[in-house]
């Protein structure tokens, strides 16, 4: 549905987006991740035909963004970083205006307005001036505006910024509900959001593509070593953490043991080991035989946050060493 080839954008002095290429299949939700200034907004602006690229090209919904921008624009919905609202318009009036701009009219337009008002929970502010809405409501109206013409491809730049927790959940559900018929690219800083909503992640840093993969693959790829979390409790109301630590370290295959937290007589340990070398049964036995209770034993999945930090850090470290070498 989206196919990006070596897309590049240069501003005076800096390269905001540097030769990135990726593909997005129809009906997928893709999370676009990167630290501030990575080039997410710039990439979205190019894919929505707002900014022309300095080099490279892309096809969106089967049309080239340079050759047939009008055809592309007919098939996309876009929620920019700041919702593009006119403060002097009322919500319903604004949605009507946008609907007409996107080519809707008559009964169909009215139907779509009612539908998006309900989906994005803006029905109760239909006759309010947009300039007087709160930030969260503006964001909702922005989202309503993006989906009003039922576009094939949706670009959402930080769609949940400024929303309350309930609305964040509803927006996530809305986005998930739209997947299937719609292809969605959303940028965000909130990593759990990506874990929850997206099937695929694209990570960029300083304009360069760092990784593009499914969430699960990324997690297993980033986890070179295997680690498990073990919660141990003492039987008579007290627990000697160093003793437990020593005991766990003696189990074969175990590398490092770290006590993550301790509450009363319970303590949580993270145990690292080389892949496939550690027997969880041995761990459990060691704990129980020493007279402690084993409350919990589970694999520690690396959070996307850690993966993200690891990937973007190693990338900048790599460029730094490259710089040093060239000097």
């Amino acid at each position, binding site marked *: 549905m989206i196919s990006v080839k070596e897309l590049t954008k240069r501003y005076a002095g800096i390269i905001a987006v540097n030769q990135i290429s990726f593909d997005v299949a129809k009906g997928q939700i893709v999370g676009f991740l990167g630290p501030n200034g990575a080039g997410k907004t710039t990439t979205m602006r190019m894919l929505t035909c*707002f*900014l022309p690229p300095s080099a490279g090209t892309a096809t969106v919904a089967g049309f080239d963004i340079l050759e047939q921008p009008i055809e592309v624009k007919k098939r996309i919905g876009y929620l920019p970083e700041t919702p593009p609202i006119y403060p002097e318009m009322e919500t319903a009036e604004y949605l009507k205006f946008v609907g007409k701009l996107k080519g809707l009219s008559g009964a169909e337009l009215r139907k779509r307005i009612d539908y998006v008002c309900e989906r994005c929970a803006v029905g109760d502010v239909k006759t309010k001036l947009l300039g007087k809405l709160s930030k969260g409501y503006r964001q909702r109206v922005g989202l309503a505006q993006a989906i009003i013409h039922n576009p094939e491809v949706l670009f959402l730049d930080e769609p949940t910024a400024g929303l309350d927790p309930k609305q964040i959940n509803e927006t996530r559900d809305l986005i998930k509900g739209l997947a299937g018929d719609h292809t969605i690219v959303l940028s965000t800083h909130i990593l759990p959001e990506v874990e929850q909503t997206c099937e695929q992640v694209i990570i960029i840093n300083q304009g360069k593509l760092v990784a593009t993969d499914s969430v699960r693959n990324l997690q297993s790829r980033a986890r070179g070593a295997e680690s498990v979390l073990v919660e141990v409790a003492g039987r008579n109301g007290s627990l000697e953490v160093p003793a437990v630590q020593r005991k766990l370290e003696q189990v074969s295959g175990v590398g490092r043991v770290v006590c993550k937290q301790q509450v009363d007589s319970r303590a949580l340990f993270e145990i690292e080991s080389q892949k496939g070398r550690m027997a969880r049964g041995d761990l459990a036995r060691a704990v129980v035989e020493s007279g402690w209770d084993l409350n919990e034993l589970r694999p520690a999945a690396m959070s996307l946050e850690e993966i993200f930090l690891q990937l973007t850090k190693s990338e900048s470290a790599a460029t730094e060493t490259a710089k040093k070498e060239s000097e």
Partner: protein
Amino acid sequence: MRNVWIICRKELGSYFVSPIAYLLLTMFAVIFGFFFWNMLGIFVVEGMEMQMRGQVYPMNINEQVIRPLLMNAGVIGLFFIPMITMRLFAEEKRTGTIELLATSPIRDLEIIIGKWLAALLLYCCLLLFTALNFAFLFRYGNPDWKPLAMGYLGLLLQAGALLAIGTFISTLTKNQIIAGAATFGVELLLWVIGWVGEYETSGWARGFSYMSITSHFESFGRGVLDSKDAVFYIAAIFLGLFLTARSMESLRWRS
């Protein structure tokens, strides 16, 4: 065409929900009204003086009242046009709504013409107030309506050209004040540049007075349709809108 109308409607809407349109209408009506009654007063007093001296000069209301008033309306418009055009693109760039327009299936030219047309329609509303004053002349006198109609045509063409220039300047900045001030400066220059023709007759002076927006209005004021002058205004409109289109394209390169 449908898209042009959608944009135009939206622009007119935002003129008339904000105080700006009413402010401009009131100020224009007051200032023009002042000019009108002043001019009429002079005309009446002159007429009485002539009668007292027993002279019978032909008094002509078209020549002595309507024509100078139309010229004045054009010049007053010069001060109002920057206030009409300054927000057209600068505002959209500042608030980011330009991203909505530019990612909708609508051509740049349709956006530009829609906005320019809305500005022109607002200017027509201003002119409507001048027409109320003139209606008074028809009620109590017997002026010739043809030069008046021609004068209005000239005013519209002149405003169209100035509005196109203002629209262009509005695409250059995010700041309405800068857009307004720059437009005002440029239009003032296009007015006074014609004055050199009054004492110089060499080539460059003729070139300057040809460029003057107001000098082309004279024929319309006299009630004559001079195709040279009409062509000048129409060319200026096209040039202004063309520059706007170019600027919008490069604006995307820069923004």
